[in-house]
């Protein structure tokens, strides 16, 4: 360590309690700033990664609606999906139909069900058991139980296990206690569903079978389709979206980018709050360092005058005091990084438990670039905070300070 650094470090060690308190203050400010940055970018990035989990950049929903924003469905789904699949710029299309099915004889009356094509579905990842058969598999007899993939919440609440069977029904008349159609399903697999809250039971069935179960009105319907552009760049995705809008007048196509923009608009107040709190924490860090270093300089006027008298240049005093601010900020920020990550993890756990949130959604997301930028900003701010007291220290009038110190 250089003599200047030794002296700066020794100065900070001189009042250990004060230094520790200042470092803690900066650490808290740094943690707050980091958490705000993680919160501001986390929801957006989490939403983006959620939407792009399986690479689908486009959602096709009934005209004027957002995916699963209403119970509206699109008729003539087969023709639309076939047209989309015929476009060479589209790599894959995944149609999906959402419906509520009754579960007579189980612990809860109904379950949200998704009809999907297992070879292209982008709604869940299989975590145990067997997946749904692909649509091309027509070997199963009409009387055989329908295969179903369910989530952990379903298994926990129903008390069933993989391999168990149960009856699902549609067309329930609550007054007459009758159902229009019923089928036995066998729980073949357990999946983690991306867009369904973790605490909500959900069941995925083959799309064709769910349509049959729902009756003739649903024979050719879908709630949503996801499409993947062959080229992933924004311009290509937008070109595909425009093409869908032009050729399929009964649907609305929305790209991930647009969806993120819409979410961002809805959450803008959240980002503003994060920005304000982040700016406040930056200001607190600045003031803490400025106050402490100014206090320290004022206490050492005589000493600094002596340093100048024995041959320390103004620049040397400036660098030393500057270094004190840097050391304070650096140590505080290192602690703040740790504190920020711990608190973000804790808060994320609390917020993720809110009902109605997708299982894969995070509020606080570690984004190295954003985090380092914000901490660097705090380091620069803290170091700059030492600049004014450093300049004052370097400009101390030697004779007057010695005289005042001798009198004092």
């Amino acid at each position, binding site marked *: 360590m*250089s*003599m*200047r650094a*030794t*002296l700066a470090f*020794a*100065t900070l*060690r*001189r009042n250990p309690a004060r230094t520790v308190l200042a470092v803690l203050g900066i650490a808290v400010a740094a943690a707050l700033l980091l958490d705000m940055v993680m919160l501001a970018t986390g929801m957006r990035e989490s939403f983006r990664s959620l939407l792009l989990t399986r690479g689908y950049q486009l959602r096709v929903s009934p005209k004027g609606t957002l995916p699963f924003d209403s119970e509206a469905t699109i008729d003539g789904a087969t023709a639309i999906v076939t047209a989309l699949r015929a476009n060479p710029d589209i790599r894959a299309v995944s149609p999906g139909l959402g419906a509520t099915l009754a579960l007579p004889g189980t612990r809860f009356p109904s379950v949200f069900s998704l009809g999907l094509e297992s070879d292209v579905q982008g709604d869940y990842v299989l975590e145990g058991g067997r997946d749904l058969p692909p649509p091309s598999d027509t070997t199963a007899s009409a009387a055989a139980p329908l295969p179903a993939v369910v989530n952990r919440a379903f298994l926990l609440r129903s008390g069933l296990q993989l391999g168990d069977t149960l009856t699902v029904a549609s067309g329930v008349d609550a007054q007459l206690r009758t159902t229009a159609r019923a089928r036995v399903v066998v729980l073949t697999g357990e999946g983690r569903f991306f867009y369904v809250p973790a605490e909500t039971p959900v069941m995925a069935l083959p799309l064709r079978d769910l349509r049959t179960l729902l009756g003739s009105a649903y024979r050719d319907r879908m709630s949503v389709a996801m499409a993947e552009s062959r080229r992933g760049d924004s311009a290509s995705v937008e070109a595909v979206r425009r093409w869908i809008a032009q050729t399929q007048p009964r649907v609305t196509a929305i790209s991930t980018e647009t969806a993120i923009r819409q979410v961002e608009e809805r959450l803008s107040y959240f980002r503003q709050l994060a920005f304000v709190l982040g700016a406040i924490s930056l200001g607190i860090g600045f003031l803490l360092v400025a106050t402490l270093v100014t206090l320290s300089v004022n206490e050492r006027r*005589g*000493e600094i005058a*002596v*340093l*100048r*008298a*024995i*041959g*320390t*240049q*103004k620049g*040397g005093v400036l660098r030393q005091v500057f270094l004190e601010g840097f050391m304070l900020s650096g140590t505080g920020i290192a602690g703040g990084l740790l504190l920020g990550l711990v608190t973000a993890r804790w808060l994320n756990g609390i917020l993720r438990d809110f009902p109605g949130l997708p299982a894969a959604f995070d509020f606080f997301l570690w984004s190295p670039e954003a985090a380092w930028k914000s901490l660097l900003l705090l380091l620069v701010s803290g170091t700059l905070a030492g600049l004014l007291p450093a300049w004052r220290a370097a400009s101390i009038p*030697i*004779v007057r300070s*010695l*005289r005042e*110190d*001798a009198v004092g």
Partner: protein
Amino acid sequence: MTHSTPAGSRGEVVIRCEQVQRSYRMGDALVQAVRGIDLEIARGEFAAITGPSGCGKSTLLHLLGAIDAPSSGRVLVNGRDTAQLGDTEATDFRLRHIGFVFQRFYLMPTLSAQENVELPLAEAGMDRRARRARAAELLGYVGLGDRRDHRPTQLSGGEQQRVAIARALANRPALVLADEPTGELDAATGERLLELFGQLHRDGTTLVFVTHDTVVANRAQRVIRLLDGRVSSDTRHGSA
């Protein structure tokens, strides 16, 4: 027995003051601390500046040490007019040519004795190994070879002032200036310190110290007495 001798006749002049005046404002009042001093101090001299409080002795010491500039007149140290030096030059000049010892020691409290002595050596750009050796040598010279790692708070007042002297000697200055160096010490400790100053003088260091204590002043080879900012007497003893 004392006698007055022009310094110039004793050898090379280290300090020359020509009609030096220094005044400064204190509130609304204009204080004339130094009022036209002519003075020469030769290399190797041991001089004490004495006089009652407020006579201008500390102001004169600051002028000799190039930490203050005269309102009029000239102060030449080693032939350099200190008023002509810019801040950077003056600081470098002090670093390389002048050693300071203060009444209140002014050691850096969180540095060891060794590190305190190393400070001006580091400022002068000496590498770590060389400055450690030089600091150890100086601490040995002032009798603190076994106290190198002690912090100022672990040293007595006399020991702290010895460290301050070692620090003042670090860059082999042409001149050592001391402001009331025994002012904060008891009589016995002050006496031992004056013996050290005598040793420095015998080893060829040019020494000027300020004291209001005439007994202490008389330990110097030459006593310059100030009154109201002027030299009222300038006397020499046979030896320090």
